[in-house]
């Protein structure tokens, strides 16, 4: 039988605040264990949470970026369970009155746009981290209390590839919105999936398996593909899929059962009495909306429609917020976006190194625009431009200075060029004779000789013109 996969993803994204959700501890990654902690995030007796306003602002921004409807009054709830990395014995989250609901994300799959529903976006705090080391378990609570948004997607995805594409698009949106740094390796963007299979054409959903720990785009695609194949095999053999939670084992390339439905926890959610209801009024939402940065999709469309950039180039240039920003600034300075787009794609992108939202772009918009302007003015050739670019990358130097230093200024004085041409013809009488006799391929030889004499600084178009006249 032919089965259709039904996939919904839940993403936990860390909000880009300097301090934790409910205390003033730093959220910086990589500090020595348990150095960014206080009575609140350690869950010491008597400590109380206080909402970080910046986290609320970024969560609202996330909800708006995903076109969600915001709840004016939402509520925090306690999710109760025991785990050593959960210092209070409960996680502060949101439950039946979340910050926002009913949004969507448009994803490009197979050349078409697919609208994927967003069930809800709510706020919660992260737990700490258990580290197992030489037979003992230790707990690092630096992450405890870091603010997260949980983005619950509708089960609208139909293949592992679609799921991976949704995840990439979501990450891009969060990065462009400036709410998340997109760092999968550091755990600031994490994904769980719900997967079920049903006979193609049937509306009723099959039994759902929850897949945990799929924290890279590569894993997502492989884990989902594996899980779909596993369920298919179970069904084909006449078996029934068991409702359970499974984990992806990257080393073995398989999903493994973590716990069954019977072992599912009862989290005993109830309203968090230590925090008043969260109020986001219309004025606040409007203010956040007005500062919402342009999202990748809108940016791509604008690059094509207003800047005349090809669809492909627009896709490439919106691959990272910092690249898009460099391109736009340089295009504004230079005035010819299409030419700039080509140069950024062919030269600049080679030197760009990204690490989530962090990006090392070793050249400025001003340098790139200035360089292309020298080419436009005929001051240097396109070939020289590449040479100059290699010198300005990683430096703050103006391209004009590099051009002067290398003696690269293009010679466009016809008199100077004609003198060199006459000299070259005089030095090579035999070749000149053959050319005049019809061996046209020798023109390249003369151009090359002139360029050599001028150390490549002669305007090649002028050299051609003059040689044609003298030898024609």
């Amino acid at each position: 039988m032919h089965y259709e996969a039904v996939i919904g993803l839940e993403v936990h994204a860390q909000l880009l605040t300097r301090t934790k959700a409910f205390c003033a501890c730093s959220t910086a990654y990589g500090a020595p264990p348990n150095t960014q902690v206080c009575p609140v995030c350690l869950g010491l007796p008597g400590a109380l949470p206080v909402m970080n306003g910046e986290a609320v602002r970024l969560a609202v921004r996330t909800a708006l970026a995903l076109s969600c409807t915001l709840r004016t009054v939402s509520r925090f709830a306690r999710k109760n369970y025991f785990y050593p990395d959960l210092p209070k014995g409960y996680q502060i989250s949101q439950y039946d009155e979340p910050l926002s609901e009913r949004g969507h994300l448009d994803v490009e799959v197979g050349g078409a746009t697919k609208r994927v529903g967003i069930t809800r976006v709510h706020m919660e705090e992260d737990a700490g981290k258990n580290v197992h080391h030489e037979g003992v378990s230790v707990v690092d609570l630096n992450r405890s209390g870091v603010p997260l948004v949980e983005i619950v997607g509708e089960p609208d995805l139909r293949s592992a590839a679609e799921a991976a594409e949704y995840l990439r698009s979501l990450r891009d949106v969060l990065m462009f919105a400036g709410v998340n740094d997109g760092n999968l390796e550091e755990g600031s963007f994490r994904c769980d999936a719900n997967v079920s299979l049903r006979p193609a054409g049937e509306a009723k959903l099959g039994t759902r398996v929850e897949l945990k720990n799929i924290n890279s785009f590569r894993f997502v695609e492989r884990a989902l593909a594996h899980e779909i194949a596993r369920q298919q095999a179970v069904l084909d053999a006449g078996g029934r899929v068991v409702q359970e939670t499974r984990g992806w084992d990257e080393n073995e390339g398989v999903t493994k059962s973590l716990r069954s439905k019977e072992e599912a926890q009862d989290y005993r959610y109830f309203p968090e009495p230590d925090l008043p209801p969260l109020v986001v009024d219309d004025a606040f939402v409007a203010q956040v909306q007005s500062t919402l940065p342009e999202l990748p999709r809108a940016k791509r469309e604008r690059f094509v429609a207003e800047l005349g950039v090809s669809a492909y180039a627009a896709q490439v240039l919106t691959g990272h917020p910092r690249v898009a920003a460099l391109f736009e600034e340089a295009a504004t300075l230079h005035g010819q976006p299409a030419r700039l787009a080509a140069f950024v794609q062919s030269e600049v992108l080679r030197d760009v190194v990204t690490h989530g939202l962090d990006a090392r772009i070793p050249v400025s918009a001003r340098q790139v625009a200035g360089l292309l302007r020298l080419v436009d003015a005929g001051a240097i050739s396109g070939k020289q431009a590449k040479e100059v670019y290699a010198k300005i990358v990683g430096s703050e130097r103006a391209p004009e200075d590099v051009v002067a230093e290398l003696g690269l200024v293009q010679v466009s004085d016809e008199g100077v060029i004609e003198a060199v041409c006459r000299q070259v013809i005089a030095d090579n009488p035999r070749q000149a004779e053959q050319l005049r006799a019809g061996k046209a391929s020798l023109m390249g030889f003369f151009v090359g000789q002139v360029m050599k004499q001028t150390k490549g600084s002669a305007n090649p178009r002028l050299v051609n013109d003059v040689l044609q006249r003298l030898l024609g």
Partner: protein
Amino acid sequence: MHVADVADRVARGELTAEAACARSLEAIAAKDGALHAFLHVARDEALAAARAVDDRRRRGEPLGPLAGVPVAIKDAICTEGLPTTAASKILRGYVPPYDATAVARLRAADAIVVGKTNLDEFAMGSSTENSAYGVTRNPWDPSRTPGGSSGGSAVAVAAGMAPCALGSDTGGSIRQPASLTGTVGLKPTYGRVSRYGLIAFASSLDQIGPFASDVRGAARVLSVLAGRDPRDATSLDAAVPDLEAACGREVRGLRVGVPDEYFAEGLAPEVGESVRAALRALEERGCVLRPVRLPHTSYAVATYYVLATAEASSNLARYDGVRYGLRVDPRLDLRAMIGATRDAGFGAEVKRRILLGTFVLSSGYYDAYYLKAQKVRTLLRRDFDDVFREVDVVCSPVSPTPAFKFGEKLADPIAMYLSDVYTLPASLAGLPAMSVPCAPTRAGLPVGLHVVARPLEEATMLSVAAACEAAFPCASPL
């Protein structure tokens, strides 16, 4: 000596803070062996702090409103550098790295912390018998309990070991022991005083408040404690009026509501007589008594025990043996460690409440218990909203009985729970309420008058309490 006497004399230089502190420490040394109000006496720290206050006075620096006043702190309130156990084995030896906001404000007002007082474990109880560290005795009759859960703080003040103390009140834990020990005990409006640093029992009900040997002392301590704290999101940003001045204010014309429901079955006749006498005394001073109805009163006990235990089951989850306090490790696995630690660390009443609270929050039972209790809580609030349209305060007994004997109610949790029947409604409604001594029983046991006011109207409440105090001057036990 009352709070204001000590502070004002220290401020005028008639008494040193050190002498006031030494007097308190001597009283503790003389009496606490028999009474056991204290779990920890901070003798050296207290004397050093007192000397620092005296030094500042000598240098001519201004002193705070509680200069040199010894204060005892309920052991559920965190004190930096002093053990804080909540009278539980699970926190034996735990020393917090920070002061509760209430304690920090007392210290900033130049009060001297003399020690930590006994309580029912995690404030769960009404007799201080549930302490893991032994019972506290009532100075009026050492065969009786002082009530609870803040029994240690009540006894510290009743026996003259400190002129004031901090307690916490979730369902009556300040007012009931105040009533049973003949002290003044005040639970502020929910949110009036920061809960930061109060070891949580039931977060939506817990409030820190003062015990004092007189009404004015309670007013002065409250004025130091009250006010918004950025560390407690539920603390209120409301102006604090001159509470001490309110203690001398006329009560003529104030309308006093007397709820029928509070003088019904279960009230000991002697307590009823005493409270009626107090009401007559208020009437003689010009108050107007009005019968009022609080029709949902009979649901208060059940509502309270659903909501408070639900919150407690979550609040006490952090005691898992992982980071601090007791750890019992049978070296099996994590679950076994957490289970063994909590089994050994918590007493029977705490376990009973965690189980009850876990049950009422469980999937399938939440709507029937927790959600329904929230709805009844709203009805109880409305009862008071209605009544406070007609009267300025509501007066009643605090406790249905005077101090009871050890073991008398311990075997019957329901009987124990019913000893808070008059104090629970004000807790559920978040209202300010206090106990002020009125005429004792013929056997000489103290009885308290319960005064409840509108939200943030502690001043009105204090005026009425001060009027009652003037009619029944406080006797001293021992």
